[in-house]
């Protein structure tokens, strides 16, 4: 459950995926693109050969009409298989997930194994994998041997999660992925947290607040 006190509400969102699928790049681009009321620096923990050893963290926030400070802390997990203990610790207490898959056809096995490890680790750290907001992003669409979009859509057709396509290096699809997660997150918690009733926060306002967009007048 999100952290909540009288004045603030904090969601923990985790970018999960195989090694070097572009999780950190997603965070860096979001930091560039988004302009919410509150935006922290991307905290990049020690890296070794450009790989995340611990996690990266991007804090975002805005105030709801009720005055509630809504904070989102976006984490990435280390992708390498060896760091499973760290991945589990980062995954703990997550309120939403983005699975960043590598579109490279040679990475299909790695994608599958990482997805399975995400599901297993969710169960291990006590997350309800069946209901947690989750968006699947196929990144690196610019690769020449990327698996075609139609093929991916067909394969993921029966799955309950939204699928988005992105090229994180250029920023394409990064915001759309995040928006899909925000909408799933809002729907999951709108009733439990009284977002619409107590805080007068609609889904579009919630999304607009986090992304730093101006909400079209109704």
């Amino acid at each position: 459950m999100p952290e909540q006190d009288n004045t603030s509400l904090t969601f923990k969102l985790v970018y999960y995926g195989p090694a070097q699928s572009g999780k950190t790049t997603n965070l860096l681009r979001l930091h560039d693109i988004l302009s919410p009321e509150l935006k922290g620096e991307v905290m990049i923990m020690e890296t070794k050969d450009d790989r995340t050893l611990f996690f990266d963290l991007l804090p975002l926030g805005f105030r709801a009409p009720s005055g509630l400070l809504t904070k989102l802390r976006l984490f990435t997990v280390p992708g390498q298989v060896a760091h499973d203990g760290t991945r589990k610790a980062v995954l703990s207490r997550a309120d939403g997930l983005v699975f960043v898959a590598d579109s490279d056809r040679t990475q299909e096995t790695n994608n599958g194994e990482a997805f399975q490890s995400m599901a297993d680790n969710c169960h291990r750290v006590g997350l309800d994998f069946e209901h947690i907001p989750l968006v699947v992003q196929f990144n690196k669409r610019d690769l020449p041997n990327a698996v075609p979009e139609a093929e991916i859509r067909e394969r993921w057709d029966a799955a309950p999660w939204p699928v988005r396509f992105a090229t994180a290096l250029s920023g394409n699809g990064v915001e759309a992925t995040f928006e899909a997660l925000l909408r799933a997150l809002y729907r999951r918690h709108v009733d439990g947290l009284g977002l619409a009733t107590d805080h007068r926060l609609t889904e579009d306002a919630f999304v607009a607040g986090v992304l730093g967009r101006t909400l079209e007048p109704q």
Partner: protein
Amino acid sequence: MSTSDFDREWRLGELFDAAMLARIGPPLAELLGADLAILDRDGRALWGMPAPDATREALILELEPAGFLASAAARPPQLRSAARMFTALLRAEARYRMASALHLEAVTQDFETLKLEHSRLLASEARYRKLSEELEARVAAQVATLEARQQMLYQAEKLASVGQLAAGMAHEINNPLGFVSSNLGSFKLYLDKFAALHARLAEGEAAWQSLDLDFVIEDGAELLADCANGLARIGRIVADLKSFSNVDRPPTERANLNACLEHAVSVASSPLPPGVTLKTALHPLPLLACNPGHLNLVFLSLIKNGMQAVQDSGRPGEVSIRSEAAPDGITIRITDTGVGMSPAQQERAFEPFYTTRAIGAGTGLGLSTARNIVLAHRGRIVLDSTPGKGTTVSLFFPGTP
């Protein structure tokens, strides 16, 4: 969220304790060239004494102020720079603290996982131990059942043999009984003649002649001798039977297998089927610790098989029984010149209930039982057969030193 979680909101006082603040505060104030206090996010002073009219500059770790620098005399740009510098220190410390807390959490989780695995292993080990105990009990029960069945089979075979034996014996005993009874009938007639003589004593020698009493005396003696022979035969059969069945012998004793073979031959050859000759070549044997009653049954069964094989061949033949002392035991061979067995038949010969005879003619337990008995004596039984030529059954009993 517990206080050990790496992703909790870190407080200024937690990142920099009083000692650390006491080291950072003075040089920072000196650089600033003014009064300075460090406050937590609620405005409480952690280091220094803030003047009531002090200006505050926020120290933002992520989104919100984690604390403030407060100074009354510092110029705003300088105070902002001091705050930026302090924030950089704060963030570096936070990064370090988060990384080490995460590391600790990961290690703890791995340890928890190990402990869980360990307890699962213990549980599964306990399950397997219980299972293995159950298995042992089940195996023991099965073995007991098998032994009981084996015993029943053995009893059935014994009953069948006894039945066959009884039929043979009945025939054997009936023969002498028949002529003894007929002789006694004749003898009663002879006694009638002596009774008649009593009435004709006056006639003297003429009566003796007329009643042909010379012949009566001569023939009567012969009749009695025949009867005695017949009874002796019956006596011998009964003695054979008794020794064969071992009614009054202990189960295991030191016995001469030649005696067993002789008994078996004697029982098997009464009556000897037409066209079958029995030959024995029994060489001196050491005594063998055995159950003679059971071995008798084996030998009789094998000899009868041999005789049956000769009869089945449709031509005259012989069954020869040979015993011999070997360096490490006793060898017995029972060879017939009968029909022989095909390889397929040989392969199945020792299976219980396998029989080539018509239904009702054989139980199919003969060789199976024989083998069980031989094995019980730590012996070996081997079949060597050529279809159309005959069969040799070799038995070997290891000597008991």
